[in-house]
């Protein structure tokens, strides 16, 4: 019998044969070493490949949700540059960031506002557990040990043309905040509360994420899900 063992085994394993063809091929297998060997190798390869299947990590599910929540519906923006999600360990030695003082209030922003891309990226990256990029930050991580917050990663990159260093912290309870520092001021979030004076800090809420921004001496964002912790961190940094 003239036949193509590779093609037939591929069609059989791929479910491309009709019931009659399958029956005939199964009978043929019993007496054909070439087809038998093809079937063995194909099945073994399939088992190996299938063994690498894995469920998506929970963090990826959260990241997808965050991306959808912050992606504006009506104003298409340039696709954010792909970055290496580099997480670099830092020694928990602090440098205090001095800044203007004010009082924090929280406001939920209304729908239909146009979020500045740099803020949208900061919130999305916070939710995804990512930092701005792979560059070594100019400053060491500010010391927030008095709040039991330990630095767990830092990296510099660019958000919509703004050079940004990100510093990630966690406490023993798993609460997270990220500080974003830049040499330029972050744009103000739509719907944010101005806390003190026209150049004072502001606070805004994006879903369950609180964003606090103080402008002096660096543009500073404090981002976290626990708004009390965000304000405590800002206070510890001298901006409240």
């Amino acid at each position: 019998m003239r036949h193509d063992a590779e093609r037939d085994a591929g069609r059989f394993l791929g479910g491309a044969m009709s019931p009659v063809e399958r029956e005939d091929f199964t009978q043929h297998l019993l007496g054909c070493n070439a087809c038998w060997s093809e079937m063995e190798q194909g099945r073994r390869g399939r088992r190996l490949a299938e063994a690498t299947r894995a469920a998506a990590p929970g963090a990826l599910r959260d990241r997808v949700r965050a991306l959808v929540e912050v992606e504006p519906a009506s104003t298409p923006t340039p696709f954010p540059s792909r970055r290496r999600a580099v997480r670099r360990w830092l020694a928990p030695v602090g440098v205090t960031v001095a800044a203007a003082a004010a009082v924090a209030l929280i406001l939920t922003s209304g729908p239909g506002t146009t979020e500045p891309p740099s803020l949208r990226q900061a919130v999305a990256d916070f939710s995804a557990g990512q930092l701005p990029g792979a560059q070594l930050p100019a400053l060491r991580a500010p010391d927030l040990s008095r709040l039991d917050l330990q630095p767990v990663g830092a990296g510099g990159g660019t958000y919509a043309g703004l050079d940004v260093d990100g510093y990630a912290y966690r406490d023993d309870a798993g609460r997270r905040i990220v500080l974003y520092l830049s040499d330029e001021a972050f744009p103000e979030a739509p719907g944010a509360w101005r806390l003190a004076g026209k150049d004072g800090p502001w606070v805004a809420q994006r879903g369950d994420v609180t964003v606090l921004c103080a402008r002096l001496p660096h543009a500073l964002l404090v981002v976290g899900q626990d708004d009390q912790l965000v304000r405590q961190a800002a206070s510890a940094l001298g901006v409240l």
Partner: protein
Amino acid sequence: MGDDEFLDAFHEHLDRLHNLARGLTGNAQDAEDLVSETCLLALRGWRRQRPDDPAAWFATICLNAARSSYRRRAARPVEVWADDWLAAQPDPDADTAQAALVSLDTLRVRAAMQRLPEVQLQAITLMDLAGYTAAQTSSIIGAPRGTVLARVHRGRKALARLLQEEVPGAARR
């Protein structure tokens, strides 16, 4: 409402998209970046027009995004949070030896897959890792079904051979 439907649909297919991205990129971090990129591209397309077959449509977007750059970067090292690393370690209360072997085998298989020709890798990843049918895979990669089946079969055979070669005595045992 529309975005909620999109999110439900994307989450429904997230496991298979993650497996697809994992197979195409060769490492966990690039896979997550690729899925994220796929999500944003798909969301923008979804807002314009809903696809007839979201599963195949998501995969097509993922494959096209992967073609652009991810495979070229597949060899770069991966850095992880310490918590992630600790979470990935075998449970000391479990069967440590068995867990280590399973983990090692998975790494070996994934490494071997990256040595396959790209068309075979795509076909195997779509069908064996992501669970797409031959018909869906044919639609996703734009090749006839017979071609898809041939690529998958050749890829499976090559994978089996590659891993057998790594263990010289395996065939005699």
